[in-house]
C-alpha cells in the first residue's frame, strides 16, 4: 500500500479542516471556484432581484414589442413589450425555488426510503427496490409530464413531479451507501452499545451518507430546472404571466427563425448558467466530499 504521508500529520479541528480542504480544492480547481461565485450571483438574483430590476417584469407595452437589446432594455423586449432582463432576473427565485423544493422533497422521501432499504434489507428493500424499478421503467420525462398533467400544472405539482422522477436515483444511491455501512465497524459498535436499529439508522447511518447525498442534490438541482423548462416547453409549466425561464425560452423559440433571437436566448442562457452552475458545483462538492469518486 502506498503510504500517504499527509494522513499521518496531526489535524486541528473538523470544521477548520474541511474549510482548508475546501480552499485547497477550490485553489486547485478554478472551475469549481467559478461555480461557487456563480451560485452566489444566482442566490443574489433570487433574493434581491425583484427590487433591483429596471422594469416591472409584468408590464406590457405593445408599442415596444420585440425590440432588440438596447441601452434601455439590455436584453430587449418580448412579444408583449415586457423587459426581458427584468423577467430573467425575477424568474431566478421561482426557478431556484422549484429546484430547491423538489430536491428537498426527493431527498426526504427517496433518501430516507433508500437508507432504510439498504440498512434493513429484506422486505423494506424489496418494496423500495420494486418502487424504484417501476419508476425507472417509465421514461422519466414522460412520467413527469403525466404527473403534472394528472395533478394540474401548478408550481407544487411541478415540484412533486420532479421529485417523483428522481426518487429511484436517490433511493439507489442512499441504499448503496447504507448497504456499505450496514456492517461497518462503527455500526456494529453502535449495536453493541445498545442502540436500536432505527436509532442506528437515523443517528449513525444517515449523517454519514449526507455528504454524498449533498453532491447528488446539487446535480439534481440542475436537472430539476431543466425538467421544469421541458415541461414548460410542452405547455405544462408555470402559469403565465409569471416569469419563468423555461416558458420564456419556449415562447421565444418561435421567434428565433424570424430573427428575434434575444427573446429565447437570454432566458436560455440564464437557464443554462444555472444548470451549469449546479452541475459544476456538484462535481466540485464531490471532490471535496469524496475525492475518490468524482465522476
Amino acid at each position, binding site marked *: 500500500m502506498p503510504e500517504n504521508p499527509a494522513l499521518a500529520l496531526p489535524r486541528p479541528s473538523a470544521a477548520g479542516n474541511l474549510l482548508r480542504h475546501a480552499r485547497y480544492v477550490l485553489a486547485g480547481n478554478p472551475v469549481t471556484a467559478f461555480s461557487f461565485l456563480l451560485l452566489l450571483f444566482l442566490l443574489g438574483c433570487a433574493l434581491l432581484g425583484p427590487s433591483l430590476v429596471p422594469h416591472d417584469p409584468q408590464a406590457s407595452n405593445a408599442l415596444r414589442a420585440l425590440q432588440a437589446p438596447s441601452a434601455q432594455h439590455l436584453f430587449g423586449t418580448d412579444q408583449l413589450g415586457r423587459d426581458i432582463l427584468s423577467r430573467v432576473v425575477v424568474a431566478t427565485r421561482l426557478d431556484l425555488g422549484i429546484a430547491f423544493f423538489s430536491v428537498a422533497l426527493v431527498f426526504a422521501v427517496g433518501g430516507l426510503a433508500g437508507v432504510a432499504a439498504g440498512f434493513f434489507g429484506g422486505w423494506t428493500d424489496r418494496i423500495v427496490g420494486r418502487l424504484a*424499478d417501476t419508476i*425507472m*421503467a*417509465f421514461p422519466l420525462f414522460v412520467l413527469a*409530464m403525466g404527473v403534472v398533467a*394528472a395533478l394540474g400544472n401548478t408550481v407544487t405539482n411541478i415540484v412533486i413531479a420532479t421529485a417523483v422522477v428522481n426518487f429511484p436515483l436517490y433511493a439507489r444511491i442512499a441504499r448503496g451507501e447504507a448497504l456499505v455501512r450496514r456492517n461497518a465497524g462503527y455500526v456494529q459498535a453502535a449495536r453493541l452499545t445498545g442502540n436500536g436499529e432505527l436509532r442506528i439508522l437515523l443517528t449513525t447511518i444517515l449523517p454519514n451518507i449526507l455528504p454524498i447525498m449533498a453532491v447528488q442534490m446539487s446535480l439534481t438541482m440542475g436537472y430539476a430546472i431543466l425538467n421544469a423548462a421541458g415541461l414548460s416547453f410542452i405547455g405544462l409549466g408555470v402559469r403565465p404571466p409569471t416569469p419563468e425561464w423555461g416558458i420564456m425560452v419556449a415562447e421565444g423559440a418561435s421567434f428565433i*427563425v424570424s430573427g428575434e433571437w434575444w427573446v429565447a436566448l437570454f432566458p436560455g442562457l440564464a*437557464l443554462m448558467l444555472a444548470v451549469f452552475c449546479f452541475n459544476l458545483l456538484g462535481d466540485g462538492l464531490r471532490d471535496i466530499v469524496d475525492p475518490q469518486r468524482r465522476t
Partner: protein
Amino acid sequence: MLRVALSRLGTAVPSLIGVVVVTFLLTRVLPGDTATYFAGPVASAEAIAQIRAQLGLDQTLPVQFGRYVADLARGDLGTSLGTGQPVLHEIATRLPASAELTLSGLLLAALAAVPLGILAALRQGSWVDHLCRVVTTAGVSLPVFFTGLLAVYVFYFLLGWAPSPVGRLDAFATAPPAVTNFLLIDSLLAGDTETFLAALSQIALPALTLALFALAPLARITRASMLAALDSEFIRTARASGLNRRTIVLTYAFRNAMLPVVTTLGMVFSFLLGANVLVEKVFAWPGIGSYAVEALIASDFAPVQGFVLTMAVLYIALNLAIDLLYGLIDPRAKEG
C-alpha cells in the same frame, strides 16, 4: 448466462405489473374528458355519451382495468384516437425511427465522450480535464429543445448546411426496402448511396443535438472509472512490468473502466429514448417520443399506455443486454 437472464426476467415481472397498474391509473386520473374532446366541436350530450360508451369509459375503473389487461394479454394495445391507428402498429413503425435516432446520437456521443473522458483522466487537473468538464457540463445544461431549435436556425436556416428538418427522409426521396427499418442500414443493404446520404443528412442534426446531451454523463463516467482504474493496483503492476502506455491505458485500464461506462451507456440510452420527445418535436422526427407526448396532451390513453409499456419492456430488455454484455467484458459477472 441463461441463469442470469432468467433471474433478471424474474425480478422484472413485478416491475412490469407495477408499470401496467401505474400507467392505467395515471391515464385514468388525467383530467379532460376524452369523449368530449373527440366528439367534435358541436357535439350533443347523446353524441358524447355514445362515444363514451364506445370507449368503455362509462364502466367502473376495475372493469376498465380488467378489459385493459385482457386486451393486453391478447397483444391488443388499443387504438390511438389522435391518429386513428392501432397503437401496436404505430409503435412498431415509429420505434425504429426513435431507435435509429437515439442510437446514432449515442454512438456520436460515445465516440466523442469516451476518448475525451480517457484524456481527461490521463491528464487529471490539466486544462484538458477542465475543458472536458466545462464542455460536457455545458452540453447537459442546455435544454435539448433549445439546442435543437438553435441548430436548425444556424445550420439550416442561416448557413444552409443541413437539409430541411422534415423527418427521416426529405419528401422527394424514396425509402429503401424495409429490412431493419433503420434507414441508414437499409439503404446500405440496398446499395442505395443516394438514399443513405439523404438519410444521413437528415439524421445528422437531431443526432448531434442528442449527442450533446448524452456527452456529459458518458464523459464523466469514463473519466471517473478511468481514474479509478488507473489508480488501481493492477495498473501499478502493469507499470512496474514495463508495459507500454498504450497497453496500460487501453488493454488494462480502459477495459476495466468499461463496466460502469456500459451501464451508463444503457441508462443514457433508455433515458434518451424516452426523453428525445422534444428533439423529435423540433425535427419532425416520426418517433415514439413525440407520439406519446401528443397523446398525453390529448388525453389519448391508449398510445400513452402502449408507449410506457414498450419503454418498460425495452428497459428490461436493455438491462438484460447490459447484464449479458457485462458477462462478456467481466468474467466475474458470470458467476452471478
